[in-house]
């Protein structure tokens, strides 16, 4: 075994993974493209999702442009994209924009960046395993994202694109004649969803198996970092919820292409086409879709919650406050998450009695979320913090999550939901969760684990500037959406100002668009920081944050196989500032005695 110095010295610019490894040399293709190494796959997921985030962000900016300056020429891009419509965004193009914004951000960015990028990279490292349980399956899980990207990408070239919203409710999504965007593009969209589902499913099986079977000696379940707990619970959620979405997607494809009628009732005449036959039920789709997509909301949040817990504890130099309550509350969120899907359907026409039960379950899911917030505040309480990029983004996560969590109660309460359902209030709510909480969490994660991924540090000043601009832009964009919702502005309107009672909201929308442009532009700094630091970043030591986790015992970046020798685990991951330890304020999980040199170092 070698020490860490050579690992860093042969580290070239495009090299995301050091060479010395276990001695078996691989070609470029098996090493960086069809790699079975969980770290390379994690990094592949990371880069792919960051790039797709730019695509989703561009859609978002186009949406914001239309809402602020309806039917006016877009700057820069009008010649390239909107030549036919005189530089304007047409209503059917607008429907495609918000459909694809939601689709890309949910299915190709948030879910894969959490589970795919960080789940892949961190799970084996944090539990002391040399790799995933099924490395080939892992590789396929990444490569199954590309057919999805291809399907979604191709669908954009059909007239109107897929335009039934990211929820694709039939009848709009079931009949070719329903809208300009309901043509073959919609079938492609459904195939894309299926591929993403297969990709996530392969990941989730792998994560569960790895976490159950491949923990290093001493790593009991209750010594696992909360990140691993979160990933474990997320994987279970995915495994149980995804088959339903996949089945529903295939049923809708069959309805569209093979003449079945799971979702299409008889006698519906759409756009002067032939009346439909058969006796399907459109509400069935909503039940099946939300049976997956509500747990998916937690799939998009729980991993970030786990990782924030680890980062906050390390940055505060303090054990996590209430380790077990944190685990129990995550489990409660996951369990309750399966019985709350109906809150998306309060006014859908389902049996109104169900509204009551779903309301109680939904309101109660706020409880474990509240417990987690209190525990995060408890973790900072009496800590010893320094305002670096990781701390700032983590605190922003907690703060934004409070807003998103509280605004959720409004929708959970059925009578209030009658009014604010499908208005901008819900848009504000889920952007506070998905952007405010999850994305700030992801920014923190990138900064925190980057040194382990690439052996280099990210720039602190750039990270802070990015944080400041994103934070201002984010709140400027999404906070006023609460007001729009209360003012009764429905979602998915290409031009809300057609209605007299919404006309006065134009200036507010313009302010939001300026904020969104600021927020979007700020992401250039993230790109510079992520890609530039590969070249200019300071070399990272093994454990730059003085953290306890097993991943920090491995070299930065870890070689193929991760650890020089199997790490033995003696305690939980949160022993910061322990009075038993006088020489340093952290106590790595692998250190048995009260000594300063790590027991696994063989230098």
């Amino acid at each position, binding site marked *: 075994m070698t020490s860490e110095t050579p690992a860093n010295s042969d580290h070239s610019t495009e090299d995301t993974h050091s060479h010395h490894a276990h001695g078996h040399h691989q070609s470029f293709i098996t090493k960086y493209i069809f790699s079975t190494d969980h770290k390379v796959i994690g990094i592949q997921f990371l880069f792919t999702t960051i790039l797709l985030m730019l695509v989703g962000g561009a859609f978002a900016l186009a949406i914001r442009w239309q809402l602020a300056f309806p039917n006016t020429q877009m700057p820069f891009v009008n010649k390239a994209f909107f030549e036919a419509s005189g530089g304007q965004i047409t209503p059917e193009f607008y429907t495609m924009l918000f459909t694809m914004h939601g689709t890309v951000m949910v299915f190709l960015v948030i879910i894969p960046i959490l589970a795919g990028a960080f789940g892949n990279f961190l799970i084996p490292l944090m539990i002391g395993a040399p790799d995933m349980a099924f490395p080939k399956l892992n590789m396929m899980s990444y490569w199954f994202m590309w057919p999805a990207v291809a399907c979604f990408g191709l669908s954009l070239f059909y007239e109107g694109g897929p335009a039934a919203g990211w929820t694709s409710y039939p009848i709009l999504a079931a009949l070719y004649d329903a809208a300009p965007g309901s043509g073959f593009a919609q079938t492609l969209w459904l195939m894309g969803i299926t591929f993403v589902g297969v990709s996530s499913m392969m990941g989730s099986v792998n994560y569960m198996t790895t976490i159950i079977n491949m923990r290093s000696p001493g790593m009991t379940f209750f010594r696992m970092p909360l990140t691993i707990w979160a990933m474990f619970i997320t994987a279970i959620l995915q495994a149980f919820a995804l088959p339903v979405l996949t089945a529903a997607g295939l049923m809708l494809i069959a309805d569209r292409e093979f003449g079945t009628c799971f979702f*299409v009732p008889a006698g519906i005449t759409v756009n002067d086409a032939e009346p439909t036959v058969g006796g399907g*039920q459109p509400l069935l789709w909503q039940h099946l879709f939300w049976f997956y997509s509500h747990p998916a909301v937690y799939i998009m949040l729980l991993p970030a919650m786990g990782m924030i817990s680890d980062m906050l504890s390390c940055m505060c130099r303090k054990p996590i406050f209430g380790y077990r309550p944190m685990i129990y509350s995550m489990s409660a969120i996951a369990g309750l998450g399966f019985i709350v899907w109906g809150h998306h359907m309060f006014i859908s026409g389902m049996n109104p009695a169900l509204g009551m039960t779903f309301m109680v379950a939904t309101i109660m899911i706020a409880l474990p979320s509240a417990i987690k917030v209190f525990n995060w*505040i408890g973790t900072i309480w009496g800590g010893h913090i*320094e305002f670096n990029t990781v701390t700032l983004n983590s605190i922003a996560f907690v703060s934004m999550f409070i807003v998103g969590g509280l605004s959720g109660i409004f929708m959970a*309460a059925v009578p*209030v939901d009658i009014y604010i359902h499908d208005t901008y209030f819900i848009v504000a709510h889920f952007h506070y969760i998905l952007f405010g909480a999850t994305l700030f969490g992801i920014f923190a994660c990138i900064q925190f684990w980057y040194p382990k991924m690439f052996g280099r540090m990210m720039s602190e000043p750039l990270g802070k500037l990015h944080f400041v601009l994103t934070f201002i832009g984010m709140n400027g964009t999404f906070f006023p959406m609460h007001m729009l919702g209360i003012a009764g502005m429905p979602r998915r309107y290409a031009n809300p100002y*057609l209605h007299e009672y*919404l006309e006065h909201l134009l200036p507010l929308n313009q302010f939001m668009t300026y904020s969104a442009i600021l927020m979007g532009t700020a992401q250039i700094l993230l790109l510079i920081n992520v890609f530039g630091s590969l070249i200019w970043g300071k070399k990272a030591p093994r454990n730059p944050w003085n953290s306890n986790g097993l991943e920090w015992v491995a070299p930065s970046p870890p070689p193929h196989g991760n650890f020089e020798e199997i790490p033995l685990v003696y305690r939980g991951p949160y022993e*910061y500032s322990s009075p038993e330890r006088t020489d340093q304020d952290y106590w790595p999980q692998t250190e048995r005695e009260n000594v300063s040199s790590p027991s696994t170092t063989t230098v």
Partner: protein
Amino acid sequence: MQGSFSVKRLWWIFFLMIWPVLAVIVSLLTPQLQWGFPLSGQSDSPLGGEIDHLFYLILIITGVVFVGTHIALGYVIWTASNRPGDRRAWYTHGNHKLEMTWTIIPGLILLFLAFYQMRTWAEFRMEEAYPDAAKQNIIAEVNARQFEWRIRYPAPGKGLQRKPQLDDMYGVNELHVPAGSPVTIHLRTLDVQHSFFLPTMRIKQDAVPGLVIPVWFEASEPGEYPLVCAELCGWGHYKMGAKVVAHPPEEFDEFMKTMHQAQFNDGFAAE
């Protein structure tokens, strides 16, 4: 580690804590800035008033929690960033009593909130809890289609039938109702899903292909109220604007008779 009064530390605490302050100020100013509930700000229906009441109740509770948690967050950040470099963080793994407190108290508040909502929901959607007048006054069938609202009224003095009748009256994008009493419409759709949304009355109900859904509402005052679509129904979703016209109750019957005469005046009656 930071010094206790470094500018950097103060700036970051300011930056993280100014936004909840701004959020509260903007929220308090919202009614003045006309960003609150649409038009007058008051609900135009009694049920809407109940919904507004529940909304404000949740707003107050969540507002207090929002301010409280942010004060706590600001306090812990303030103290945690002010710790002298040689003083270690507080070594604790949590506190059972605190965990119990912050589980049980929010739990009770949330349960109260959930049960407190139920009556209004029952009134709006559970047929047995409908007001009696709403059960009797079934005034029209509203049939949504891309991108308009078609309305079918029964002839004056007759009840609405499931099947269209020879003497039914039709209208598009204008739903005429009497003010001051609950009325029911039967909501249907001819093609894709739509949603019947009366923003100023806080009423919303999806129209689902294959289902006939009764919706009741009451316009408190005579006047015109916006009716829009709130469920994505295709490219023209945003254009599905219409209005509900509430007539003074004593004029409504007369209005319907006039409409009936107008629609059935085939030019021969006068001879």
